[in-house]
C-alpha cells in the first residue's frame, strides 16, 4: 500500500472518530449513558462510552485496508480482532460495570487470534541482551498477559479530561514510528489508524470534555499498545511507554486496599479556584497533585509530559541501544 493511501485511511479514521464522537456526545446524554465530570464545580453530566467512536473508526478503516490487501495479511486480521475484542469487553463493562477481577481474563481471551497467528517457540528482544528465548511460553503466556496487563494499565490511569486519549495518542505514536522503522506493515497500519482515531476523539475529550472514553476507549488503547509491540517485536519499547501507567497500577495494587482506595478515601476534590486535592491513597496522579497546586488541565498536561518523556526514551533506547 502506498503512502497517500495510508495517509487517506488515517484521515478517514480521524474524521470518522470525530464525527461519531460528536454524534454520540449528545445521543448518549439523551439515552442516559452518562457519567458525572467529578473534577469540575457542579459535576456536570457528560456522555460516557465515547471509545465506541474510536472502535467504529478503527474497525471501518481496518476493513478498508483488509479489502485493499485481499485479506492476505493474517497478523493484521489477528491484531484487529484482538483490539476489537478488548473494545467489546470495554463496552460490556461500560454497560454492566463488571467486577475488576473478570476483566483480565476476558481481555486475555480476546488475544486468542494473536496467539493463533504467533503460535510457535519465540523470544523477546531486549536492549544490551538481544533475544530472550521463552519458547512456547511466548504464545501461551506472554501474548495474553501482555494484552490483559496493558489494557488494565490504561484502564487504571484515567478519569481526567483528555488523559486517556492523550496518553494513548503519545504512546501509540511512538510505537507506530518504531514499527514503521522496522518495516512491520501490520503493526504500523494498526498503530496509525489507532493514533488518528484517538486524535479525532481527543478533540471532543479535551478539557472541558464533551464525552468520556469509558472502558471501551481505555481497554482498546492498552490492547493496541500490546498488539503493536507483539507484532513488531517491540516488547521492551512497550514496557517503557507503559511505565507511567505501570507505576499507577502498582501503587494501587500494593496499597493496603488494592483497587479500593477510592471507595475508602473518596474521590479527588476540586476547590473553588479549580485546584485539585488528592485523597489519601497512593496513585500517580496524586503524586503530581501533592508536589504543587494543579488544575485538572495542568494535571493532565503534567501526566502527558511524563508520557511523552517515556515515549521518547522508548524510541531512543530502541534505536540506539541495540
Amino acid at each position, binding site marked *: 500500500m502506498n503512502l497517500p493511501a495510508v495517509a487517506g485511511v488515517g484521515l478517514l479514521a480521524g474524521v470518522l472518530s470525530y464525527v461519531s464522537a460528536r454524534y454520540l456526545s449528545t445521543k448518549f446524554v439523551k439515552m442516559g449513558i452518562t457519567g458525572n465530570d467529578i473534577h469540575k464545580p457542579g459535576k456536570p453530566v457528560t456522555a460516557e462510552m465515547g471509545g465506541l467512536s474510536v472502535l467504529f473508526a478503527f474497525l471501518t478503516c481496518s476493513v478498508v485496508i483488509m479489502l485493499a490487501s485481499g485479506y492476505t495479511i493474517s497478523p493484521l486480521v489477528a491484531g484487529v480482532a484482538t483490539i476489537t475484542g478488548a473494545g467489546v469487553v470495554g463496552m460490556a463493562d461500560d454497560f454492566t460495570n463488571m467486577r475488576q477481577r473478570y476483566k483480565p481474563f476476558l481481555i486475555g481471551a480476546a488475544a486468542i487470534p494473536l496467539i493463533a497467528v504467533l503460535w510457535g517457540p519465540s523470544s523477546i528482544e531486549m536492549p544490551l*541482551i538481544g533475544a530472550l528465548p*521463552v*519458547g512456547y511460553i511466548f504464545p501461551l503466556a506472554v501474548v495474553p498477559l501482555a494484552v490483559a496487563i496493558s489494557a488494565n494499565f490504561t484502564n487504571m490511569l484515567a478519569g481526567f479530561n483528555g488523559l486517556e486519549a492523550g496518553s494513548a495518542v503519545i504512546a501509540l505514536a511512538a510505537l507506530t514510528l518504531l514499527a514503521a522503522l522496522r518495516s512491520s506493515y501490520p503493526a504500523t497500519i494498526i498503530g496509525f489508524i489507532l493514533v488518528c482515531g484517538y486524535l479525532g476523539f481527543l478533540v471532543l475529550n479535551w478539557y472541558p470534555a464533551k464525552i468520556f472514553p469509558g472502558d471501551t476507549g481505555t481497554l482498546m488503547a492498552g490492547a493496541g499498545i500490546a498488539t503493536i509491540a507483539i507484532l513488531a517485536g517491540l516488547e521492551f519499547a512497550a514496557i517503557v511507554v507503559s*511505565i507511567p501507567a505501570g507505576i499507577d497500577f*502498582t501503587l494501587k495494587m500494593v496499597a493496603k486496599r488494592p483497587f479500593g482506595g477510592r471507595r475508602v478515601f473518596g474521590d479527588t476534590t476540586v476547590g473553588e479556584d479549580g485546584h485539585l486535592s488528592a485523597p489519601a491513597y497512593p496513585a500517580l496522579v496524586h503524586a503530581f497533585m501533592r*508536589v504543587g497546586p494543579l488544575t485538572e488541565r495542568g494535571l493532565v498536561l503534567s501526566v502527558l509530559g511524563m508520557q511523552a*518523556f517515556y515515549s521518547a*526514551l522508548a524510541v531512543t533506547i530502541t534505536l540506539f541501544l541495540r
Partner: protein
Amino acid sequence: MKQAYVVLASLVTFVIPNAVALGVWFLAGDLDPIIRSLGSILVWIVAFGLSTQLFWRLVQGFFRRDTQ
C-alpha cells in the same frame, strides 16, 4: 515546575528494575536459556514493584520538605 520532580523520581522505577534484571541475566549465564530469561523477567517484576514504593517515598519526602 515542581511536577518535573515526579518525572525525575519515576526514573527509579525505570533504572532499578532494568539494572537488577540485567545483573541477574549476566550472573545466570550457566543456566538453561529459558529459565535464565524467565528468572530475569520475574526479578524485573519484583524490582519494579519495590521501586514504585521508593518512588512514592521520594514524592512524599519532597512534599514534606516543601511544606515545612
